[in-house]
């Protein structure tokens, strides 16, 4: 093994969505960083759907942006259709989603990585961690180079022992067209990590020249398209539509006829797949009464004829695939360019992680992305940036950051992972966030910009712009509190026009804005000062005023839980010495080793009684 002469601060293994964010974060924080990928043409590849965002996922993208990450800017530059979902619901559950030009997305990220100071991008397959005793010193590659580094971030995606299934045919692969990564997971297992098996899948890619789009319903971009990044002023890419198609009874019959050759139903696949993103055969079997299933036919890019039929992933054999796709209206003559497949891969139980994403077993080793049992580009990237930040902070000898459930979706996800683990690929949902009304896309910068700046990831210019915005919001909140209606004839007729003739003289603008029928749109008619405010500031003020009661309720809840969240459990805490715990609870606590009482409370099977005991014990310990 040849030891490479450069010694790195941070080595990131894998250049998927997690690895890219991790490497950029560490390098931008001033750490000499190495990013290794099996192929340099395969960085930031969107292996499955050609889109970023959606409910809760869009929230994650905004949070990554607020912390100083790249994903939002990348999709803003490569997005070819932008939509805001749930516009008829409240601001907390609105989320952006964008279709991406896959190749453009990948190439732009590659360029950003290549131009980043302190960052070396190299091709290489990591086969083992280089350890001396229990100390991590770097990584070894298949081509015989040893890279030395102080910290390592593993982002292996679906590559660790990847096994591709198409019908009953299966072969080793990290992704269609790519080799798997072998060796690493065996070593992790021998080090004491609990390595499990998960399954995911992707639909076929269809030739757009053979689709009759005239028979399908088109769905267009919002106009104007709303960008993801707080720094993007406008979207400049041309916007193209998606199309909606449906399965029918014949489709379902064809699918049923192929079930005996489905690796899923034949028991060939041992890994557990996601319930929220079932394969089409799963949908047909589990919901036999449903007459049709909907699919969005999404473009894979501007320069390609490939289309992605969402929700139609399958591991059925290729003849069944061809037949069932062609059974759908509009797809009668469709040509499959890439077959659909299922893939099994190794992941490591995330309960073996601290909330910093550093492993509990090996110091200076961080895990991010699908290796932790998650699914989705956004989930991966969000963990990537957190792991990159904490690896860099570790190198610098600074305290790690841990994001709370009350301040970010990233915090919710990481806490879920490290306290509950996961049995199926973990995807973010807004319902996972108990403080959902506070964790909105629109205020991600207000929640996280300060943290991104304090770790050194957000640059001065961006931070200054943020501070200005924050001051304007505060100023405007104060202004609407003190400005009052004089109820002159102009205002009086305005009130009558907008259905609030009951308003008294002296009512504050804040009170006006609290009414469902009044927004800045209406207020500007009597209040010329509104025009001078940036739209983002108006939006924040309007939301904060309108939802004040609800927001305050959630803030109170956070306050109530704070004591429990902040109660730290020493890492050497002796659970055996507590006679009151049942053996099941004790076993759980010893296995998970939670960092805080809050984490302990969320571990499944840890009863409220056990938490009460622990809290008494921790108090006793503190008093001694």
């Amino acid at each position, binding site marked *: 093994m040849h030891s490479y002469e450069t010694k790195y601060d941070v080595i990131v293994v894998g250049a998927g969505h997690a690895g890219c964010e991790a490497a950029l974060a560490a390098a931008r924080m001033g750490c000499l960083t190495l990013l290794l990928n099996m192929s340099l043409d395969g960085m930031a590849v969107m292996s499955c759907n050609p889109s970023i965002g959606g*409910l809760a996922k869009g929230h994650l993208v905004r949070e990554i942006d607020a912390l100083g990450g790249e994903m939002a800017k990348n999709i803003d530059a490569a997005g070819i259709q932008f939509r805001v979902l749930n516009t008829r619901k*409240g601001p907390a559950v609105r989320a952006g989603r964008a279709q991406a030009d896959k190749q453009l997305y990948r190439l732009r990220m590659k360029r950003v990585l290549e131009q980043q100071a302190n960052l070396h991008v190299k091709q290489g397959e990591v086969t083992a961690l280089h350890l001396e005793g229990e100390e991590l010193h770097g990584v070894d590659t298949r081509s015989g180079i040893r890279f030395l580094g102080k910290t390592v971030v593993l982002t292996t995606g679906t590559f660790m022992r990847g096994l591709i299934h198409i019908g009953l045919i299966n072969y080793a692969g990290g992704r269609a067209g790519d080799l798997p990564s072998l060796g690493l997971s065996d070593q992790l297992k021998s080090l004491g990590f609990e390595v499990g098996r998960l399954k995911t899948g992707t639909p076929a890619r269809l030739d757009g020249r053979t689709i009759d789009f005239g028979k399908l319903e088109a769905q267009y971009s919002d106009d104007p398209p709303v960008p993801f990044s707080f720094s993007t002023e406008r979207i400049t890419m041309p916007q193209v539509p998606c199309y909606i198609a449906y399965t029918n009874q014949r489709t379902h019959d064809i699918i049923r006829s192929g079930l005996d050759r489905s690796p899923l139903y034949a028991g060939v696949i041992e890994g557990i797949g996601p319930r929220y993103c079932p394969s089409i055969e799963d949908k047909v079997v589990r919901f036999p009464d449903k007459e049709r299933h*909907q699919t969005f036919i999404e473009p894979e890019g501007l320069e390609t004829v490939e289309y992605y039929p969402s929700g139609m992933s399958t591991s059925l054999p290729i003849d069944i695939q061809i037949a069932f796709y062609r059974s759908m209206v509009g797809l009668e003559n469709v040509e499959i360019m890439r077959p659909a497949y299922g893939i099994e891969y190794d992941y490591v139980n995330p309960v073996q992680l601290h909330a910093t994403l550093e492993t509990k077993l090996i110091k200076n080793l961080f895990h991010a992305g699908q290796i932790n049992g998650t699914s989705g580009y956004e989930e991966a990237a969000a963990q990537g940036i957190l792991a990159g930040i904490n690896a860099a902070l570790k190198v610098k000898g600074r305290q790690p950051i841990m994001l709370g459930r009350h301040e970010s979706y990233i915090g919710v996800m990481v806490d879920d992972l490290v306290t509950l683990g996961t049995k199926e690929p973990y995807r973010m949902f807004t319902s996972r966030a108990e403080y*959902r009304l506070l964790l909105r896309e629109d205020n991600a910068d207000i929640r996280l910009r300060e943290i991104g700046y304090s770790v050194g990831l957000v640059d001065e210019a961006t931070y200054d712009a943020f501070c200005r915005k924050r001051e304007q919001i505060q100023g405007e909140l104060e202004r609407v509190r003190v400005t009052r209606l004089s109820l002159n004839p102009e205002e009086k007729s305005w009130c009558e026009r907008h259905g609030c003739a009951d308003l008294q003289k002296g009512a504050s603008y804040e009170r006006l804005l609290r009414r469902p029928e009044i927004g800045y749109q209406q207020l500007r008619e009597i209040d010329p000062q509104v025009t001078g405010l940036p739209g983002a500031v108006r939006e924040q003020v309007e939301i904060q005023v309108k939802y004040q009661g*609800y927001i305050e309720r959630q803030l109170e809840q956070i306050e*109530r839980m704070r004591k429990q969240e902040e109660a730290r459990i020493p890492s050497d805490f002796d659970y055996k010495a507590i006679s*009151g715990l049942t053996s099941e609870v004790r076993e759980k606590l010893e296995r998970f080793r939670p960092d805080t009482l809050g984490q302990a409370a969320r571990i499944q099977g840890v*009863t409220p009684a056990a938490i*009460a005991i622990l*809290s008494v014990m921790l108090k006793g310990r503190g008093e001694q």
Partner: protein
Amino acid sequence: MYIRDTIAAIATPLGSGGVGIVRVSGPDAEHIGRKVFKGSCTKNGGGFESHRLFYGRLINPPDGSLIDEGMAVLMRAPRSYTREDVLELHCHGGYYLVRAILQACISAGARLAEPGEFTRRAFLNGRIDLAQAESVMDLIASRTERSLSLAQSQREGHLSRSLTALKAPLIEALALVEAHIDFPEDEVDPAVFAVIETRIASVFAGISQLLATFATGKVLRDGVSVLLLGLPNAGKSSLLNALSGTDRAIVSALPGTTRDLIEETVSLQGLPVKIIDAAGIRAHHADCVEQEGVRRALDKVSEADLLLLLVDGTVPLSNELTDLVTSLAALPYLLVVTKADLPQLLDVSAFAAPLGICSVSAKNRVGVDQLSSQIYSHFVQSSAFSSDDCAVISNVRHRDVLIRAQQSLNAFAENLSLGLPPELLALDVRAALDALGEITGETTTDDLLDLIFSSFCIGK
């Protein structure tokens, strides 16, 4: 690390009971047992057999002097109330004897238990959950058999089970709302809110049903007070004795706080009833009622849950009696005509008797049982407590929590009709769920625990 010492306390009420029990819990329980108890089991260095009652002598360890004859039982961990070794020493009742046994245990190495410490240990050792711990507190405070069985059924988890059943449709409703939010493009049925409304309504009704048991539950736990009002010689004392004798369950006989009132707690069909004899209305001179006494008795009327007006059936209507009835004005009372075994000279049609008339003879025990069931049914609706295994709310905190849950569900219904977005509706459902979780102990805080444990009475 936290070291458990051994605690001791008197487990039976202090007073004139026939048997007194001192309870010891902790790792030294057996050791202490050997020091203070000498019986066949401790001869020749032998040990206590777990869960077996032994006869022997209770002694004072410093000098070995005899305190009493008695029995001892050791319940080895974890098969005991606290899941620790528990020793119980049974001696004759009486304040001084029981105190002496407790003192012996303390000089043998035990520490006097703090209020509620036995139950705290049971809770901390995972023996009982929070709702059970609270009901133990009620159990200790319960005064009669019926309230005892109420507390016991709660301890066995009836309430927790009822709440779990109520939580299921709530969780289901919440899941529907959440699906509607998180999967905007997945064709979630738009009729979903009609389903959610039905679920919420059924939970609301379920909570109402539980809340309806509160009045009964509280009555059974805390008991009620009944004021006996009447002229001297109307037969109040005889009636009091007759009622007490019904169940032979005098729990306490305390002199009233003023010289004019006598209180006695009796059990009527399991309902703890405090009977107050308003002895204050007595003839000051031969022919006039003392106005001050009447006023004082009438003050008591407002504190009592039920007023019994006793009249002597053998005496015709007198001016004094007319005055008394007049002074009662519009107050509802149950008219009790006494001495029914003798010729009746009183014209009862002169009384309004808003709660009815009952004729009794304390001497022959005629009508006493009817009176007792009339009092019972005045407080306890038979339908609300028809089955012994239904959950009954008797704890104020439980009631408050249920009311909060209902308020959240009301808010949900209102916000739904206002057309508020689903993420706000979800908040209401979640709040209701969290509230229910507070009883089953799923969402608890340190403050709550402190409050619960500080209100336990000593010894359990």
